[in-house]
Structure formats: structure tokens, C-alpha cells
């Protein structure tokens, strides 16, 4: 497969580092070029990294419940930066408290994310989705 580049990181004031490291491992193993901007990452860092590396996708993680506030306007900022076509995923514990998943998913889809993953998703799922969305044949 041709090299596809993805930018990943943990957004906002979130410091959950472990899953992020494992996710990187998994995506690299799956053949992606991974730019991991780490935890405590503002929206700008994702977008700048994507512009600089001409990335194909941005994967946003949020584990601490503030995802809803942290992700506001993300898609718009991507468009402003010329990344209107970039594939945008988000996943994790996206809201405070246990809520029904469907409305949460809808909310983030409405915000412009292409795919939204609930807590406990294993890496295999977004990897398969990303291959499909980027038209990678194995």
C-alpha cells in the first residue's frame, strides 16, 4: 500500500497518554505514517501538523469528558487551513457522564467529523475504516 500520513493526538487539557501510545503502535503496524502530537494538544497543533505533513487524516482522541467543548469549530478551522477534504475521526469518552451513544455520535457527526468512536473501541476498527475511506487496497 502507498504511504498514507495521519496526524493523531489527545485534544484539549487531556493527559491520557497510554492509549495514545498504543494507538500509534497499532496504526504504524498497519502501515500508516503516523505523526503523533501527543497529549494536551490544541486544535491548532493538529491542523498545523496536518498542513506541514500534507496528511490524509486527523484522528482526535478525548478521554476526559471535555471533548464536546474542545472539538467545537474544529472542522471550520480545517476548512480555513485548506484541509476541507481531510478525513476527520474522533473517539473516546467524548462527554461528561454516561449518555446514550447515538445522540453523542450524531452531535459529533454534525460537527463535521467523518466517523465517531465510542469508548472501548479497539484499534482494528478505525484502521479498517481508514483504509476504506482512503481507498487503500490490501
Amino acid at each position, binding site marked *: 500500500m502507498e504511504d498514507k500520513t495521519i496526524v493523531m493526538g489527545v485534544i484539549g487539557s487531556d493527559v491520557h497518554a497510554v492509549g495514545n501510545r498504543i494507538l500509534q503502535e497499532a496504526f504504524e503496524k498497519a502501515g500508516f505514517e503516523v505523526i503523533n502530537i501527543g497529549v*494536551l494538544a490544541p486544535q491548532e497543533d493538529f491542523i498545523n501538523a496536518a498542513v506541514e505533513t500534507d496528511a490524509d487524516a486527523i484522528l482526535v482522541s478525548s478521554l476526559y469528558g471535555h471533548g464536546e467543548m474542545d472539538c467545537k469549530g474544529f472542522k471550520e478551522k480545517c476548512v480555513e487551513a485548506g484541509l476541507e477534504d481531510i478525513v476527520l475521526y474522533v473517539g473516546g469518552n467524548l462527554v461528561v457522564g*454516561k449518555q446514550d451513544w447515538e445522540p453523542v455520535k450524531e452531535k459529533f457527526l454534525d460537527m463535521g467529523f467523518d466517523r465517531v468512536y465510542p469508548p472501548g473501541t479497539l484499534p482494528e476498527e478505525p484502521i479498517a475504516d481508514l483504509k476504506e475511506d482512503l481507498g487503500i487496497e490490501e
Partner: protein
Amino acid sequence: MELKNEKWSLDKFKEIREEVLQQWPTGKDVDFEEAIEYHNNLPEEQIMAEKLAEAKEEDVTLIQPRAGVALIDEHIELLKFLREEGQADLLPSTIDSYTRQNNYEEAEAGIEESREEGRSMLNGFPAVNHGVKACREVVEALDAPLQVRHGTPDARLLAEITLAGGFTDYEGGGLSYNIPYAKNVSIEQTLLDWQYVDRLIGYYEENGIKINREPFGPLTGTLVPPSVSHSVAIIEGLLAAEQGVKNITLGYGQCGNLVQDVAALQSLEELAEEYLADYEDVMLTTVFHQWMGGFPQDEAQAFGVISWGAATAALGKATKVITKTPHEAMGVPTKEANAEGLRSTKQVINMLRDQSLLSNDKLEEEKEMIKQETKQILDRVFELGNGDVAQGTVRAFEAGVLDVPFAPSKYNAGNLLPARDDDGAVRFLNHGNLPFSDEVVEFHQEKLEARGKSEGREPNFQMVIDDIYAIGKGRLVGRPRS
């Protein structure tokens, strides 16, 4: 300002204090003299150090949840619920993640949005924004001691406000709230900022007010070997005691193997008594954290994990245990789920309060290994600092002599790779630059080779990943899929 493990003069403390109290408008409401007065009038049942001393005396394990929401009334309601319906002995106020990064503006926005949405948009209680008076409203609405729990590298203003606000316990430390909670903050900086917090508490103690301090034991909460977290806990204990802190609770996060966990709890207390022997009148207690890593999504399975943590805390005679909830895998729990975690924990603790894990060769061996390892690390820290533990700590992190697995901080070497052995105890697959003797290194190697043999694979990073996911998938040891 040069970092040294030396008690700050009151002048130096007060000089910096002026700046600290101006970091956010609510800082101006802090009046130390008046706060002393306020604490003097607190009922004894709300003073953490008294409750902990009593529990230690009676060999009882107390229970405490994590909890915090954006708005004051809702926060009070939540804590009342956990006290009444969860039978919590001790209460927390968990601080939101914006406040932890000193983003008081974003916290303010979160408060606003929470009001508008009618639900908490913050994952904790923004105490700095709410200020001293609001903290006291919380304290006065309850009948148990309150602790601030957070994850704040620079927690000076938060300490000023919450302690003046009647909280009697403060979690954290210059290492335990930096390495797992920050990316770009130097260790020198957080040690200085936490010397401030400790000096503030020392100042309260000088005025007859007991404030308990609790280094955050579990660090990254992911396969942290006991000697790693013990080293950090003892360093933070020493730094706190030097600034005049008199009541210290040392923490440890459950690894999952009963013998190792009980050995860790016992050795932590014994080591701390040894290292802190020069400081008079220091009361030491212990806190055990129920499993801090990934949880099963299923609530029934989560109850199993919670209960096993409760059993370990009771058998290990921890002074208190911090509880998890059946919603753990889903993020911040509802108050009902939080109370459920408390009640299942209380049931197990009460059933086991008259039992303990009896001594045997394996337990003694584990304790001995943890002590050896911790001493080897701390010896080198003192050496690197020419006897000054604060300076030695900074250099030890640079040299990877202190190192925490899976931490986000760039000031952390990140060379460690822990994995479980065949019994589920956490060992070093790669001990990086930890200054271990050959004996220690071989002990760990042999343990992991034994596991590798029984699984028919070489110990490697895949084994580590399997272990990280294991409990979430219903196992302790991440066995290869067959």
C-alpha cells in the same frame, strides 16, 4: 530561584504569595488569619488528619470516591448523595481538567455552558473560579472531611483558595502531578511550585491547623512497578515534611496480584517511616487506589474489579481506599454509579475488616525486593543531589534514574517497559536506567522469562500491550490469544 530541599523562610513564601493570589480575581478573597480562625471552628469530624489517625489506630480502611461537577449546588448535591447513599467516609472534590492546566478562562466558559445546558460540561469542580466562599458552602453542607483531588502541575492558587475554603486535605506533588499530567513543564518548576504548597500547609500547621497531604501514588496508573511509585512517594513525602507538613498519606495503585499489592502497601509504610525518621511528629497513613487502568465495559465485570480492589485494600490494611465505579470504562460516572462503587467496596471492606493477609515467605520476599529496589533508586537520587533530594530528583529524571512508564512528560526518560509475570505481578521487562543491582535485574528477568516460557513467546512490547488491555477484557495477565 534555586531549588533546594530546605524549608522556605516565611518572607520568601509571602513574597511569592502576593503574585500567586493575583493569578485570578478570586485570589484576593484569601485571608490567612481569617482562614485559621475558620479552621479552628471546623468540627473534628471534618478534619481529615483526625479521621485518618482514628482509622489507623483502629486498623480500619476508610472509603473515598472521586467526584466533582461544574456548579456549586450540584456539587453539594453530588457529595451529599455519595455520603448518604454511598456511605463514603471521606469526601473529595475532584477538580476539572481546565483548572488543572490553570485555564481559568476555559473553566469559566465551562461553568457558563453548564448553566445553559443544565448538565455539567466540566469533568470536575472548578474551585478557583468559584472561590473561597463557595468552597465553604460545600464544606458546611457536609459532615465529612473534604480533600482536593486534581492533577495540577502549578496548584498554588488552587491550594490557597481551597484550604482557606475549609478543605483539610490536598492531593498531589511536584512529581506525581507533573510527570503523568503535563507535557512541557520542567520538574524544577513543579518542585518549586509544590514547595510553595507544602510551605503553605506548613504555615497552617505552625498555626495549629492540621492539613493532610497526599502524594498521588498511582502516577500513570498503568503497570507502574511498586518501587517506581514508592520512590516518587517518598521523595514527595520528604519534600513536604521539610516544608513543615505533618500529616502525610502515601499512595499506591493496585497492580492486581494480591501478594505484590499487600507487599507494596506494607513496604511503602515501612520505607516511609525509615526515610522520614528525622522529621518529628509526622503522621503517616496509606491510601490504596482501586485499579487505575482500563476497565471492562460491562458493569457486572466492573463490580468484580472494584470488589477485588476493595478486598486487597482490606487485606493490606490500607488506611483508606479510593473507589472506582461500574461506569469507569465510560468516563465520568453518574452519582448513582459512583455510590454503587462505594457500596460494593464498603461491603467487602466490612466483611474483611477482621482479616488480613498473613505473612509467608513469598510476601516477605516481595517486600524485600521492593525495599531493595526503592533504596537503590533513592540512594542514587541522593548521590546525584550531593545529599539534596530536590536537586537529586531533577538530575535523576534527566538521567533516567527516576522514570515513570507511559508518562506524557518530555522531562521523563520513558525508558521503562513493565509487564506482568506468570502470577500477574508487575515486573520490569526493560528497567531503563534505573540503578538496579544485578540481583534485582536478574530477579525481574527470570520472572518474565518464566512467563514467556509458559506462553511460548519471547517477552516483548506485544506482551506489554496485552497486559494493558487485559483487565478490560476480563483477565489480569494478557495471555496471547490461542
